[in-house]
């Protein structure tokens, strides 16, 4: 009798371990089910394990007393969302990797057999190397441009906005309340061959300068690499501007004044005080801009030409038009892994913990 009570107390005291393991086991079960690790009768075994694990945690919460309940509570709150992400985020990544190493039985078959088919990856690199290059180069240039445009704007709003700060910030965000696609289509109208910008440039005579800078191509602005980069810059600007603004806003203006009192001139105060303190914002903004820009295909489609397609266009085309899932998955996997690597390297070099 006393033995069981002691045992129960021990379980109750370690309820957090129980809760965490239950969450992990349940997640693994869901990934196994979603990503087809198991088949046939094993499926019912995994489902049974899942139900048993969740049931036993529930049982412990009901019978374990207040201490156990307190220890279990965070895992209970986390579980619905985490299990959702396990099934619809982790399991898909696994099945993406699996399909990227599979081969089709025949040209028109929908069945895929896993066969360590690394040729999908060599096909991806051989046929779509240019698109990978475009994706990373365009996204990198666009990220730099968003810093060059976003930083001064954020600076002016944060330090010179005064009582209009919130209104100015609102003004910056408002354009992005219109649909992403509509904004991009609007840019294609603005940059069109007989559109306003081209005509103004022609009238002012800046055409040659733009040609020389390789922004224009034979009197065209639309359907050039510059237009694609411009579109990416525009569409992802708020992701750069807002984090920078947040980090600038946090800066204590007394520090800047102190620098002035110590005979630092304005530019030195900026270099030595303001800019270092705003680096976390630039860091977060860079990630939030570069990652979606590298995977984008909308800008390249509406503002580019067949020679400016990015990897997103190729993945989309191979996946949805050619139904060539293995190669499309291989490209997506390469994109995912290379971005993850870049992010890791970047975090190592410029790292701050304050991402979100």
């Amino acid at each position: 009798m006393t033995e069981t009570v002691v045992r129960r107390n021990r379980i109750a005291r370690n309820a957090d371990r129980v809760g965490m393991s239950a969450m992990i086991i349940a997640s693994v079960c869901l990934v196994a089910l979603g990503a087809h690790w198991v088949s046939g009768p094993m499926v019912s075994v995994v489902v049974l394990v899942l139900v048993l694990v969740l049931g036993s945690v529930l049982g412990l919460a009901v019978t374990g007393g207040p201490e156990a309940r307190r220890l279990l509570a965070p895992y209970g709150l986390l579980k619905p969302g985490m299990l959702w992400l396990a099934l619809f985020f982790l399991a898909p990544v696994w099945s993406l990797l699996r399909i990227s190493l599979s081969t089709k039985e025949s040209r028109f078959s929908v069945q895929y057999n896993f066969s360590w088919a690394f040729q999908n990856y060599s096909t991806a690199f051989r046929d779509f190397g240019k698109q990978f290059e475009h994706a990373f180069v365009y996204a990198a240039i666009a990220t730099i441009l968003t810093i060059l445009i976003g930083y001064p704007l954020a600076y002016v709003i944060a330090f010179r906005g005064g009582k209009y700060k919130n209104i100015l910030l609102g003004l910056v965000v408002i354009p992005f309340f219109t649909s992403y696609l509509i904004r991009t289509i609007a840019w294609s109208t603005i940059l069109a061959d007989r559109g306003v910008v081209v005509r103004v440039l022609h009238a002012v005579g800046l055409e040659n300068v733009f040609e020389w800078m390789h922004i224009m191509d034979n009197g065209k602005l639309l359907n050039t690499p510059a237009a694609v980069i411009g579109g990416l810059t525009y569409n992802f600007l708020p992701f750069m501007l807002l984090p920078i603004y947040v980090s600038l806003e946090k800066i204590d203006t007394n520090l800047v004044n102190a620098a002035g009192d110590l005979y630092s001139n304005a530019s030195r105060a900026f270099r030595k005080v303001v800019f270092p303190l705003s680096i976390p914002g630039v860091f977060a903004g860079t990630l939030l801009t570069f990652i979606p820009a590298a995977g984008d295909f909308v800008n390249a489609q509406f503002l580019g030409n067949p020679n400016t397609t990015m990897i997103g266009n190729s993945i989309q085309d191979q996946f949805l038009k050619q139904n060539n899932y293995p190669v499309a998955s291989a490209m997506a996997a390469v994109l995912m892994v290379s971005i993850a690597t870049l992010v890791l390297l970047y975090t190592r070099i410029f790292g701050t913990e304050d991402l979100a």
Partner: protein
Amino acid sequence: MMRKRTKYGRYALNVFAGLGLVYLFAPIFFIVAFSFNKPKGNFNIAWQSFTFDNWLHPFAEQSLTHALWKSLEIAAVSTLVSTILGSLIAVALSRYKFRGSEGINLFLVLPLTTPEIVLGSSLATLFLGQNFIDFGMTTIIIAHIMFQVSFVALTVRARIRGFDWTLEQAAQDLGATPVRTFMKVTFPLILPGILAAALLAFALSIDDFIITFFNSGPVQTFPLQIYGASRVRIPPQINVLASMILFLSVALLMTGTIAGMRKSAEKQATAKKFNLLHRK
């Protein structure tokens, strides 16, 4: 001399910021202006003449209106679910200290640092390999909840970071049941953060294109409809509906800001009263 230069520098920076705002608004100006255009042919891209017709018949394009309703439906359902799931995560992370919270924090950022095209295509491979759900509304909603959860969890967590959880203990010491404590103390205090996150999630869902594109099946959402139609025709109703959404969001934003300003003014007023009372 030196002083003069910094003065010019100041001026130049402000001008640059002004130009930045003009740049941000350039396409918006076009979208709103062309909602009053009377286009020749199928493409509303060259200015012809001014008309109110499009605004008088904003829902004339049936397929477009239908798609907009679908988008609203999807956004409503996915926002509701993801707000609940995400808020629970946020409360767990900020209310409790527990084993593995660091790992959870890292895991939450993962969907945000994965390009949308990878999220969309990988989820599609999951749905391809099974016979339970067909591509359609269900898959779109599942996909939206998947990417909204992280956004909601991180937003709510950021908003309730400084929350004083001992208030709950105080309520319970005063004899409130846990349910009553939650309804009367905790929930009202974290509600603003949850609402802000829900708004963000709703906006993300309405505007999502890439992930939806991979998981939509036959269903046409508003962005998908625009994408599909853009090759064939760009009717002015697109501009009208986009302008409507824009004006509506601006109105929402303004009421939010005004309400916030009024609230802080009230707070100051009560603080003043309180001080006066105590001085007596």
